[in-house]
């Protein structure tokens, strides 16, 4: 805290003592313009206090001001967090539910038949009895599609969960490592990268499964074979795709958009989290500096 606050009030104090010394040296001149000193005071505060902060804003006038950028950055983090929580939930739900394939309407079935990665369930349309059958033991022979999709989805789940937790720790509103803004922003980048990586197995798994189901169905139709049941992909598959896309989106927001709002200067690289510390202090300093200056102004006016 101390180190992050010093650069703000040190120039202010220096400026104040400089003004004092100037008043001592050129008291006669000071006397001439007591009228100008009160309006000069707020201007002087504004230039002294935030100048150490917003010097970079002047270097590139095309960018919005620092405050707006800080707001945008905060907003982006929340948007990414929102996407991350939903896409992680979607991925987990997609992995553990059993409607990756459902029977198509044109098949001769009175019941809904869902096949998932772990279970196969039939829901009878008349009496509502749902019969689920687990696939055989994990070491038994499974189609390659099933095993690979399982592995990909579990990888995506784990990565997305990890990325989400990292993102939570890196959020600016969570007081984790409050004194080290560098590490916090780096945590956000790590979370974004992890989410991006997590989206890859998720989208590969679900799209592959969907494509496989589609190819199977269309080849059956093409060869005019009718097995009595035809499958299309079900809502778990859609959830998996949506979750992976959400992961991509959150990761992109965290990496690319945050990178746009990252600043260049070495000591001002991550102004937002430092600024967060400042915000209350800056106000209090401004307040506490109003009094001495106006008093000195009065004194100088009386002198």
């Amino acid at each position, binding site marked *: 805290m101390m180190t992050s606050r010093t650069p703000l009030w040190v120039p202010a104090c220096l400026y104040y003592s400089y003004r004092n010394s100037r008043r001592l040296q050129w008291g006669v001149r000071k006397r001439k313009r007591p009228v100008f000193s009160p309006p000069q005071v707020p201007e002087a505060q504004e230039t002294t206090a935030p100048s150490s902060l917003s010097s970079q804003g002047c270097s590139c006038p095309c960018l919005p001001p620092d405050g707006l950028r800080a707001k945008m950055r905060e907003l982006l983090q929340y948007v990414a967090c929102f996407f991350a929580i939903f896409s992680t939930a979607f991925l987990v739900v997609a992995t553990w539910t059993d409607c990756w394939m459902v029977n198509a309407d044109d098949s001769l079935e009175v019941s809904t038949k869902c096949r998932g990665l772990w279970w196969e369930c039939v829901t009878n349309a008349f009496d*509502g*009895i749902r019969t*689920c059958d687990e696939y055989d033991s994990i070491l038994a022979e499974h189609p390659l599609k099933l095993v690979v999709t399982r592995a990909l989805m579990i990888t995506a789940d784990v990565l997305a969960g990890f990325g989400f937790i990292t993102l939570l720790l890196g959020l600016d509103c*969570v*007081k984790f490592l409050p004194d080290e803004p560098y590490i916090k922003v780096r945590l956000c980048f790590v979370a974004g990268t992890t989410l991006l990586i997590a989206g890859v197995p998720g989208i590969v798994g679900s799209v592959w499964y969907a494509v496989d189901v589609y190819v199977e169905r269309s080849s059956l139709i093409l060869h005019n074979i009718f097995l009595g049941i035809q499958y299309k992909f079900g809502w778990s598959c859609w959830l998996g795709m949506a979750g992976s896309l959400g992961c991509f989106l959150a990761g992109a927001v965290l990496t690319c958009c945050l990178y746009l709002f990252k600043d260049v200067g070495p000591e001002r690289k991550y102004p937002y989290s430092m600024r967060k510390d400042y915000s*209350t202090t800056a106000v*209090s300093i401004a307040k506490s500096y109003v*009094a*001495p200056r106006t008093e000195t102004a009065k004194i100088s006016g009386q002198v």
Partner: protein
Amino acid sequence: MANSGLQLLGYFLALGGWVGIIASTALPQWKQSSYAGDAIITAVGLYEGLWMSCASQSTGQVQCKLYDSLLALEGHIQSARALMVVAVLLGFVGMVLSVVGMKCTRVGDSNPIAKGRIAISGGALFLLAGLCTLTAVSWYATLVTQEFFNPSTPVNARYEFGPALFVGWASAGLAMLGGSFLCCTCPEPERANSSPQPYRPGPSAATREPVVKLSASIKGPLGV
């Protein structure tokens, strides 16, 4: 800081409890058929839950059926459903509230008293959720026990406690423990009054003096 750690510990305990409450609400194994007595080896295991009854075949198939009618259900199942759903909702609200109120977030930092109160109300909601779960689960367990020891129940139609009941007990305990940890972190009044004053660096006497005046004038209207 220790206070904040206690809050975090309580929050994660309560979070685990909330997940457990959801799991036990959804699980169909509130009671399962008992193999006590004459030990007839059956190929079918029967489960009953709050929402459906299931039959698990020895071949690995599980057949489940949702309860058909809501109004024809027995009263204890309906009330257990209501209590569990209320517990899940209370836990959700408590989760959101205690995230806002905990010291590790920056939300509402300018008003630590209100923040502390929010944290305490979140903890109280977790306590209530745990109590609801405990009531529902224990009530159900009592009825299952009564039915088991009722001499008019045929031996082969006896049910005993299922895994969901134990999950429910454990998660109720976790939620209550976490909630009480969250409630424990009461802010002390005098510390809470002094903390909202912002830090003012002032090494030079010229700056320090007006600061004292300013803080005195700030304190004045608050009546401190």
